[in-house]
């Protein structure tokens, strides 16, 4: 638990502070970062609240985006309910937070599965992703939009890959197949998978903010697509 707690603090705090500082450097002031974040949240809430409701004739693109936002929101709830006790108390989730975690978890599994089905084709890695990665490695000029789009696509597949041990560890834990040590191992796998998943989700959110119109006013249409 101590190692997991230290890793969780380092990774999550490092990512959040790194992202905040980078956005601050890009946008010029903390006020601008706050505004950009508020616009992102407002935009997401507005979209889900007014346009995201399933209705007759709703486009697949809207459904896709709704599923994405719901998955992201559920992931954040799950991460908060799991990591707050670990980071703050140094203990496993229990009480209200555990109830919240186990209640939200099946909805997250369902929405993540829908996201996988709806987004997989659009998020498949393309030749231009390979080119963007090569340019980055060779320190050649690369387009910011291309790079962050590649990060988002790569992040999507990392999330899907990590979700497999995340789900499998819980599925196996629900059957009387393992003893105490086996159950503890499965909980560890679940925890570390969750840590990688939430870290990747943070990077995806960051990449999304960097290519969005609000955070990056001069981004081209191609970069925002």
């Amino acid at each position, binding site marked *: 638990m101590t190692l997991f707690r230290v890793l969780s603090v380092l990774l999550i705090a490092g990512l959040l502070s790194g992202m905040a500082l980078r956005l601050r450097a890009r946008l010029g002031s903390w006020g601008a970062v706050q505004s950009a974040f508020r616009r992102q949240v407002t935009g997401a809430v507005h979209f889900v609240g007014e346009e995201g409701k399933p209705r007759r004739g709703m486009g697949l693109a809207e459904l896709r985006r709704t599923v994405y936002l719901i998955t992201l929101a559920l992931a954040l709830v799950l991460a908060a309910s799991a990591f707050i006790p670990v980071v703050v108390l140094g203990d496993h989730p229990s*009480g209200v937070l555990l109830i919240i975690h186990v209640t939200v978890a099946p909805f997250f*599994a369902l929405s993540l599965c829908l996201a996988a089905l709806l987004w997989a084709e659009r998020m498949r890695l393309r030749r231009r992703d390979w080119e963007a990665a090569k340019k980055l490695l060779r320190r050649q000029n690369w387009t910011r939009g291309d790079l962050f789009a590649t990060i988002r696509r790569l992040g999507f597949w990392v999330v899907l890959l990590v979700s497999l041990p995340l789900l499998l560890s819980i599925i196996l834990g629900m059957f009387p197949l393992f003893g105490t040590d086996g159950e503890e191992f499965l909980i560890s796998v679940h925890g570390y998978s969750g840590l990688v998943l939430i870290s990747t989700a943070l990077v995806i959110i960051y990449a999304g903010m960097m290519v969005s119109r609000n955070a990056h006013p001069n981004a081209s249409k191609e970069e925002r697509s």
Partner: protein
Amino acid sequence: MRVKTSRAHALGIPKTDKADDALPRIAAPVFVKQEDGRYAPHNAVWPAYWAYRHADGLEPVPPSVVRPWIADIYNKDTSRAVGRWAALRDSDIVAILGWLRERDTARGTPLYVGGGKVFLVGRDGSLRAEGDDAAKAYLWPIAHDVRPKAQSLGIRGCSDCHASDAAFHFGSVEVTSPFVTTGDLVERMTAYQDQSPVFPWLFSKSFLFRPALKVLVIVCFVLMALVVVLYSLRGLARIIKSFATEEE
């Protein structure tokens, strides 16, 4: 329930009291959260003794000091029947605490420990109960934490612990005391698990949906695994194709 142990009840020794209610009264199994965070079945016995409280904590009074006074109370009141325990009333406790104070005024506040509480005489002369760590149950794990597989918790599934009527969280623990006014109390098992009974109850109710949850999560897992495998194979095919193209 109450249990007897070989050491506490001298089982196997000739002329031992073999009655079911032979003292000491040990409650078991009490499922206690241990320091490592795990729950384990324990035996529990509640302390009952006289003591002085001072800055360093409680200093027990030897039974031989108090025994003559309790014997005197019983001798003067012939209506009392001596049972397993010398049952004490409020007035007896107040009187004995008064005698202890008179005996040695410099040793601290005399008090009685029993039934999971400490009792002392208030300023108005009445008996007052307080919580104190010294009055908590003495607990020790059963059978060195080892038991046969057939008796282990979980062998019959999740409901061994997580049913809303499972003793693991919702059992009652008898807190025994020779003090008549307090009598034998009952505590919830969750009192020994550092948690409110609400959360285990809510959690146990979630098991009503557990079969559906298992099916849902397994279906989601299989679909997601298929998506990953499918696109991994497509990527592999693309790589193989690109090798073939370069050769041409």
